[in-house]
């Protein structure tokens, strides 16, 4: 009768809650998104020059050029492997070097500006 039904209802509810809690506890924690943040090597462009003019990075590294000059510049590989759009002040360009080697680059607008990325 009434008290027996109430007992059953309470037991069932408690059981369900317990099961849910147990299941929740058993679920694996949400994994962190992706890999740890990749570091990028920065080359600053200012006064018509790349700084540092030579950088050494490991294979797979990303290099980011950022233009701090008041005139636009580009970064282009002498072998045609990459070529940025014209970067105005505060614009950036990134390239990831997947193979070891010596990469010469220059500014296509002001070709006297040259630099090297050594990938080891």
């Amino acid at each position: 009768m009434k008290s027996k039904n109430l007992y059953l209802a309470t037991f069932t509810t408690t059981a369900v809650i317990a099961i849910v809690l147990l299941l929740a506890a058993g679920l694996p924690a949400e994994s962190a998104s992706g890999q740890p943040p990749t570091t990028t090597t920065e080359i600053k462009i200012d006064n018509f020059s790349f700084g540092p003019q030579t950088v050494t990075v490991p294979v797979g590294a990303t290099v980011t050029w950022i233009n701090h000059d008041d005139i636009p510049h580009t970064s282009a590989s002498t072998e045609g492997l990459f070529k940025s759009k014209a970067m105005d002040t505060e614009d950036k360009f990134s390239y990831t070097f997947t193979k070891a080697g010596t990469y010469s680059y220059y500014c296509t607008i002001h070709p006297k500006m040259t630099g090297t990325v050594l990938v080891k």
Partner: protein
Amino acid sequence: MPDKKPDLIDQNLQDLNDDGVDRRGFLKCMAWAGTGLVWTMSGGIPVSGAFAKSYGKGAGKAGDFTFVQISDSHIGFNKPANPDVTATLQTAINKINAMPQKPDFIIHTGDLSQLSKPSEFDTLDQALKGASAKQIYFVPGEHDMLSDNGEQFLERYGKGTKGTGWYSFDHKGVHFVGLVNVANLKAGGMGSLGHEQLEWLEDDLHGRSASTPIVLFAHIPLWTIYPDWGWGTDDSEQALSYVKRFGSVTVLNGHIHQIMQKVEGKVSFHTAMSTAFPQPAPGTAPSAGPMKVPAEQLQSVLGVTDVNYLVSGRSLAIVDSPLGSTGA
């Protein structure tokens, strides 16, 4: 011009000039530019004279004409060196329109735009619509080549040109050649004309009478002014060898945003001021680029160039006028 490092200027001039223009002569030229004193070429020998006297009276002879060179408008530039390059361009156009002798045409020696953007070219075109001379000839600067190797520029200004935009035309007996030395630039180099253009130039000049006055115009100087800053053209010697036999050759360039002049035999070289912003003199700053001057001085370091062809002497007289000066 501020004389901050006299030794450096002297050294540079010594290095650059084995043509007899010493520091004193250089500074004299700078003063002349401001006062409108004419430095004419007559049979290859420079002769100075007050401009108003010699030209104003003699004007009107059949075949005499005048044209204007403007350069480096850099529409789109908006940094402290000049926050409103469109306004200074308009001042330059007003100055052209106020010239007593209406120029037959205008030559723009490049860097029309700052970033080769369509809106920048549009603004320039709009401003030039108000110029008294309706015929305008252009050659690109490196800033005009930023969208796919100058496609935008060629579409707008390259009709009838060859290769990267070179061409020639004749006007009242004077032969004009527009050259492009801002395409396919090599790492570590300066300006470059390239083999194809040089071959075309040689062919274009072939057979012309040596008494034909020649005017070459290109963006980057066709003589070596300062290699460290890329102020020169790697293969210009070859181009200049093709004009050696002519009696009068004038080379008009831009790019360096300041007046520089040189005479070598029968060839006179001239670089124009910009209508947008000045640049430092060679070696007087860590790099080339926009040079900020006090606001009240800006108009004195920007300008236009009036070139007058006088049939009688088969000579071209070059007169530079800062925007801030009164009179042509």
